[in-house]
C-alpha cells in the first residue's frame, strides 16, 4: 500500500522549523480554518475522525474535548503531554524536534475547540533539544501573530508555554503531570474528579499526547473522512508513529497507517538484527505484556493488540531475538518501574520493589520454582488496586513472563543461573 506520510512529512525539512517554512507546506491553514468554525464544530469533526489518544490509553480525543464544561466561570487549560519517558518510546521527540509548528498548530486548534486561553507543553526534562526547538518555534509563532492577544487576528487570545519536567516517568501520568505543573511533587491524584472538571489549577483541563495533537491540523484541513479512510476500521483510524527498537537492523520511528502488521513494520525497519530469529516483542512500550513470535502477523492497532492480551500503548515496539533472556529483560523492566514508582500508594510502592527483588534473584539463579506463583500473586494484588496506572503497567511484563515463558524461569532455577550468554552492552542492566 502506498502510504503518504502525514505526521512525518516535514522530517528532514529544516525549513519547517520556522513559521515561514512551515506555512509553505500548507501549515497553519488548519488553524485558520478552525477559527472560522464554531468551537463545537471543531470538536464534532475530531469526534467524527475517530482520532484516539496516542499516549497509551487510546481514549477518543474528540470525546475527551467534549467533556470540558462550557461557560466562562473558570479558565480552561490545554496541557500537551510531551513527557515521553517509557522505555522504548521516542516518537514524540521526532515530532517536536523536526516539526514543532505542527504541534503548536494542533494545540492552538484544540484550545479554540475547548475555548482554552492557556496551553502548557509539559516536556520531559531530558529532551533539552526538543524543548529549545519548541521554545524558538513558540517565539516565532508569537512574532507572526499566531499566538498571543489575537490569534491570526481573530480576537482569540492564546498563550502557550513550554514547561520542562525534572525527570520522572510518573509525570507522564496526566494527574501527576498536573501536580508537577502546579509546582508540587509529581504524583498522581485520586480520580474522580477527572481533569476535564478539576485539572490544572483547579480548572477544567484537556490533556493530550503530542502525536494526538499533531494529527489535529490534518483532520481539519483534509476532513474527518480522509482521516477515517486510513487504518483498520472505524475505531482504529489515522496515521500512526511506531518507535521500533531492539534487535532490528534499523531501529527508529516509522510512520504507518494504524493497523499495519508487525511483519510489515519489521520489514520496514530492515528486518531482524543480523538475520536473527524473532523470539518475542513488546508491542506498546515497557508496560505492555510481551507477545511471542507466533503473533508476527498481528495488526498493530488498539483493538487487535488488546484482543491478543497486550496493548498498543504508545506503540513503542521492542523486538527481541532468541539470544534474549526473558528473565533478565523483565527484571530490567521491573527495575525501571520500581525506580519510577512515585511511592504514594501501597501496592505499587511495595509490589514493584518486591517483584524486582524476586526477578533479580531468579536471574542470578537463586530463585525457586514457586516464585512463579508468588509473582503471579503479587501481580494480582497490584493489578487494578493501585492509585494510578503505573501499578498495572508494572505487572504487564512480569505476568507475561510467567505465563508465556515459564520454562525459561525453570531453567534459571534448575541451572542455578542464567542460561543465556550476555551481550556486553546489556550488562549494565539488571
Amino acid at each position, binding site marked *: 500500500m502506498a502510504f503518504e506520510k502525514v505526521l512525518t512529512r516535514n522530517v528532514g525539512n529544516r525549513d519547517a522549523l520556522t513559521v515561514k517554512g512551515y506555512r509553505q507546506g500548507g501549515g497553519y491553514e488548519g488553524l485558520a480554518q478552525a477559527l472560522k468554525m464554531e468551537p463545537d464544530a471543531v470538536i464534532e469533526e475530531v469526534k467524527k475522525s475517530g482520532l484516539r489518544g496516542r499516549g497509551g490509553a487510546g481514549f477518543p480525543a474528540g470525546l475527551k474535548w467534549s467533556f470540558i464544561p462550557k461557560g466562562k466561570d473558570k479558565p480552561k487549560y490545554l496541557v500537551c503531554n510531551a513527557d515521553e519517558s517509557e522505555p522504548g518510546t521516542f516518537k514524540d521527540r521526532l515530532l517536536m524536534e523536526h516539526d514543532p509548528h505542527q504541534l503548536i498548530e494542533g494545540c492552538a486548534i484544540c484550545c479554540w475547540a475547548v475555548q482554552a486561553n492557556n496551553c502548557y507543553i509539559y516536556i520531559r526534562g531530558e529532551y533539552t533539544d526538543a524543548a529549545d526547538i519548541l521554545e524558538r518555534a513558540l517565539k516565532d509563532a508569537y512574532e507572526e501573530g499566531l499566538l498571543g492577544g489575537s490569534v491570526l487576528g481573530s480576537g482569540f487570545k492564546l498563550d502557550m508555554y513550554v514547561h520542562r519536567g525534572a525527570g520522572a516517568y510518573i509525570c507522564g501520568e496526566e494527574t501527576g503531570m498536573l501536580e508537577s505543573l502546579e509546582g508540587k511533587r509529581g504524583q498522581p491524584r485520586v480520580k474522580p474528579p477527572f481533569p476535564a472538571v478539576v485539572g490544572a489549577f483547579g480548572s477544567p483541563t484537556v490533556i493530550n499526547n503530542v502525536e494526538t495533537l499533531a494529527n489535529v491540523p490534518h483532520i481539519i484541513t483534509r476532513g474527518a473522512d480522509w482521516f477515517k479512510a486510513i487504518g483498520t476500521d472505524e475505531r482504529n483510524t489515522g496515521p500512526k508513529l511506531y518507535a521500533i527498537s531492539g534487535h532490528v537492523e534499523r531501529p527508529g520511528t516509522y510512520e504507518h497507517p494504524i493497523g499495519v502488521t508487525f511483519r510489515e513494520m519489521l520489514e520496514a525497519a530492515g528486518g531482524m538484527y543480523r538475520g536473527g530469529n524473532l523470539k518475542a516483542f513488546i508491542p506498546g512500550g515497557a508496560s505492555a505484556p510481551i507477545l511471542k513470535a507466533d503473533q508476527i502477523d498481528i495488526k498493530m492497532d488498539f483493538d487487535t493488540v488488546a484482543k491478543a492480551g497486550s496493548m498498543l500503548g504508545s506503540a513503542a515496539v521492542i523486538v527481541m531475538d532468541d539470544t534474549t533472556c526473558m528473565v533478565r529483560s523483565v527484571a530490567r523492566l521491573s527495575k525501571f518501574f520500581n525506580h519510577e514508582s512515585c*511511592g504514594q*500508594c501501597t501496592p505499587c510502592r511495595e509490589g514493584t520493589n518486591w517483584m524486582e527483588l524476586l526477578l533479580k*534473584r531468579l536471574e542470578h539463579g537463586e530463585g525457586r520454582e514457586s516464585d512463579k506463583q508468588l509473582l503471579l500473586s503479587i501481580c494480582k*494484588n497490584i493489578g*487494578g488496586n493501585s492509585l494510578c496506572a503505573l501499578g498495572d503497567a508494572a505487572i504487564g511484563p512480569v505476568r507475561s513472563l510467567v505465563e508465556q515463558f515459564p520454562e525459561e524461569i525453570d531453567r534459571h532455577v534448575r541451572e542455578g543461573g542464567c542460561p543465556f550468554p550476555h551481550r556486553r552492552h546489556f550488562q549494565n542492566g539488571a
Partner: protein
Amino acid sequence: MPKVTINDRTVEVEAGTNLVEAGLKVGVQIPHYCYHPRLTVVGQCRMCLVKIEGMPKLQAACSTPVVKDGMVVRTDVPEVEEATQGMMEFFLINHPLDCPICDQAGECGLQDYSFKHGVAYSRFQYDDKRTYPGRERIPLGANVLLNMNRCIQCTRCVRFTQEIAGTGELGFFNRGARTEIGTFPGKELSNPLATCVVDICPVGALTSTRFRFAERVWYLDKRPSLCTGCEVGCNITLEHRRGDIKRYKPRFNPEVNDYWMCDYGRATFERYKQIPRLQAARLQGSAASASWQQTLDAVHHGLSTADGPVVFLGSPNLSTEEAWLFAQLADAVGSPHRSVPVDIGPERTIPNLKGGITGREAAPNRRGAELAGLSPGEGETIDVDDLILGGAAERCGALVVCDSDFSATAYSPETIEKLRRAKFLVVFGWADSPLAKVADVAIPTPTHAEKDGTFVNVEWRLQKFERAYPAPGQVRPAVDVLVELLARFDPQRWGKLDTPAVFDRIAAALPAFAGLSWRTLPATGVALNVPQAQPTAAATVNPETSQGQGGVA
C-alpha cells in the same frame, strides 16, 4: 438524601459522604490508614478497597462519595478480602515488626488490621527488608521522633502540617520504595500542634518524646477529662497508671477542639508531679497532720470570729461546683470580698470546623468560678489587686485562698509575705506550695484528675470532667469538705452532697445553669445562656448584676 447499601444494610446519607463514613453509619468498619475525616482524601493506602456493583475494579471507599441513590457496596466478598490481605502483606514485608519495643504497640493500626485481615505466614522469605539506616530515631522537632523503618507512607502527618497546622514543615522525599517522610531543609516540626501528628500516625513511625518508653499502652487506664492548660477546654483522654498520669491525648469534640490539642496542654500534667503534694490537713505550729474534725473546727472558728473582713481569693482552677460552695461560704459569713485572679498567657488557637477557638487565660475555669459567685459582691470590696499589688491583707480578719496554685504569683515570696499578713490565713489546694506552708490552716484538695466537676470555657461552654483515679493520702473531695464546713454554719441547709448534687443545686439557683442536670449533660458540653456582654477581664463583675442581665432565662 441519597441511599446507599453496604453489606445489605441500607442507610441514607448526605450527598457527598464517602463510603468509609457511610459504612460507620451502618456498623461496617472499612479498614483505612491514610483517610482521616479532617484531611484531604488522597486514596493512597489502598486499604479501603470495596466492591461496588457495576464497577469493574475495586474502588477506594475513602475517595468514593455517595452522590445518588442505589449504590450497592460490599466489603464481605472474597475479592475484597483478598485485596485487603494483599495490602496488609505489602505493608508488612518491609515493616521491622519491632512491636516488642515499639511505643505504638497495643494501639497500632498495623497490629489491629493484621489481626483482622492479615495472614499468619510470610512470603517475603529471603530478601532483606528495606531499611532507612540512620533514620530510626530522628527528632523532627522537640516533641516528635521519627522512625522511618516503621512508616507506611500514609502522609497523614504531611497533610496535617499543611492543612491543619498550616505550617507545612513535613514533606515526602525520594520516591518508590525509598519514599520517606522528613522535614524540609532548615525547618523543624515545632508548631504548637506538632504532637498531633503522633496521634494521627497509624503506626509507630512518629512517637512522642514525652511518652516515649513511658508505659506499655495496655497498662494505661484511660478516662475522659479536660485539659487545664487554658480557657479553651480541650477534651482529652487522661491516661494514667495507678494515679501516675502518663499522657494526655485529644478526645474528639467537634464543638471545641475537634481531633486536636496543643503541645503545651499535653505537658500540663507534669505540674502535678513537679510541685510537692499536700496530702493531709495541717495546722500552723503543728508538725503532725491534723484530723479533718480539728481542721474544719479551726476554720469554722477562725472565720466566725474574724477580727475584720473575711476575704475570699478565688481561683480559675476551681471546678464550678467548688467555686459555688466557696461562694456559699462567703455568703454564710456575709463577705462580699471575692475575686478570681487569672494569669494571661500566650494566645493558643485550636483549629476546629468553625475556624478555631482561641484561649488567652492560662487556666480552665475563670468564667465558671465567676458565674458560680466568686466575683466581687456589692459595695467596696477587697479584691485580688488590693491583696497582691496593695497591702490589703493586713486589714483582713481572715483570708481564704481557695487554691494554693491559683496563679504564678502564688509562688512569689513577696506575695506570700503580703498574704501572710492576714490575721487568719486558710489555704486550700492540691499543691503544698510555699504559700500553703505558711498558712494557719492548710487543707488538701484533689487535682482535677481526682475529682468530678465542670469547667466553663472561653465560649461559655460548660463541660463535664470525671474523676480518673482516687486522690492520695488523706485528701478528700473539696466538695465534701466544703459541704461539711458549711454544715457547721447552717446544719439545716447542708447535709451530705456529692458533686452531681451540688451541680443540680447550682442549676436550681443560677439562671445561667437553668434546666441543666448533671446526669443529662451532653458529652460535647452545653453552651451556657450567658449574655455576650460579659466582660473578659477578671474580678470586675458584680455577680448579682451579671446574673440579672437580659437573656438569662
